[in-house]
């Protein structure tokens, strides 16, 4: 992974947590602690780390008040061969797997993270409550 390491990403999430507004504030402290805990064990999220080509495990959770889901797909569609689909409150988030096994999404395109769940959480952080609009 490039310079933006997992720990930098956590720093970013912490910075964001400081600046988000009242609707999310109550949820931030607990969810952020949860985020940090999971991120420290991110390799347990699935087989997404370090070039494994198997699809990561499915996930379904509420993160900072948003439902995030991810699961492997049967190819085709508009996933460009990603073989994995991620949703935020039911709307698909376009995600992509890099050659080194890291992940990005269209919401956070230039900052790879280790798993699709981490990409979904980064998208929720970035969206600050906004809804995704359908793509392509």
């Amino acid at each position, binding site marked *: 992974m490039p310079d933006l390491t997992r720990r930098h990403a956590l720093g970013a999430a912490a910075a964001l947590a400081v600046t988000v*507004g009242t609707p999310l504030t109550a949820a931030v402290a607990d969810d952020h602690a949860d985020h940090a805990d999971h991120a420290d064990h991110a390799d347990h999220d699935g087989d997404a780390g370090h070039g494994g080509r198997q699809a990561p495990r499915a996930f379904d959770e509420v993160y900072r008040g948003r439902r995030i889901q991810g699961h492997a797909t049967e190819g085709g569609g508009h996933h460009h061969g990603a073989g994995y689909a991620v949703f935020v409150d039911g709307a698909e988030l*376009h995600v992509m797997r890099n050659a080194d096994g890291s992940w990005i999404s269209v919401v956070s395109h230039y900052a790879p993270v280790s798993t699709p769940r981490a990409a979904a959480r980064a998208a929720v952080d970035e969206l600050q409550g906004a809804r995704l609009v359908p793509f*392509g």
Partner: protein
Amino acid sequence: MTVRKNQATLTADEKRRFVDALIALKRSGRYDEFVTTHNAFILGDTDNGERTGHRSPSFLPWHRRFLLEFERALQSVDPTVALPYWDWTADRTARSSLWAPDFLGGTGRGRDGQVMDGPFAASTGDWPINVRIDGRTYLRRSLGGAVRQLPTRAEVDSVLAMSTYDMAPWNSASDGFRNHLEGWRGVNLHNRVHVWVGGQMGTGVSPNDPVFWLHHAFVDRLWADWRRLHPGSAYLPGAGTPNVVDLDETMKPWNDSTPAALLDHTAHYTFDAA
């Protein structure tokens, strides 16, 4: 002849003309066509499939051509305008004149990231975000919010020192100059700047922020600097590479020019200083 200048050296009149041309393109709908094109390539370029605009050798010639198209559109509004470049190794804080209200405006407010000053603030009514991936229609930024430091000159020089243009597998895992400049590997130059700006600049619809053009004009300048430093180093790959634009293959979406035809920027513009 078009001369691309360091943004820090622009006169008040040059800034005003540049901003006015951007807003005129926005009003006509032409600006948003560029955002749409960029996002289509962001979504479509993949490490193991066809890749043209990003994560591939043609990242540099593709953006050179994209910026040329955009600059010509600006010049159709005001022929005196050229794209300025932002040397983010030098102007590396939110206090730079780049972010002043007479130019691009500053960082976003804490609550929702909304840019509140400058010509592109939503309150002006001149800069609606129409091509978007979420419901927010206002320009957003969080300068230095997601990553603290812009690249340093020493980091740039370490990448300029790489003599091989690009290497197999010709994607985000490659060693060599192109991928280190793009930032998927190593000290991370181009990608990190997108993340440092934040807001739409961190997303697939990054050209929604006018700083996109100034960022890429500097990345383009670094490619020119690299060519001068390594006159014996060629664009690679030369031929026969599946899913990748070879030296003499045409690039989508224009289908009428090749990396070979874009290597020499001086046919189109020069820079203000060596």
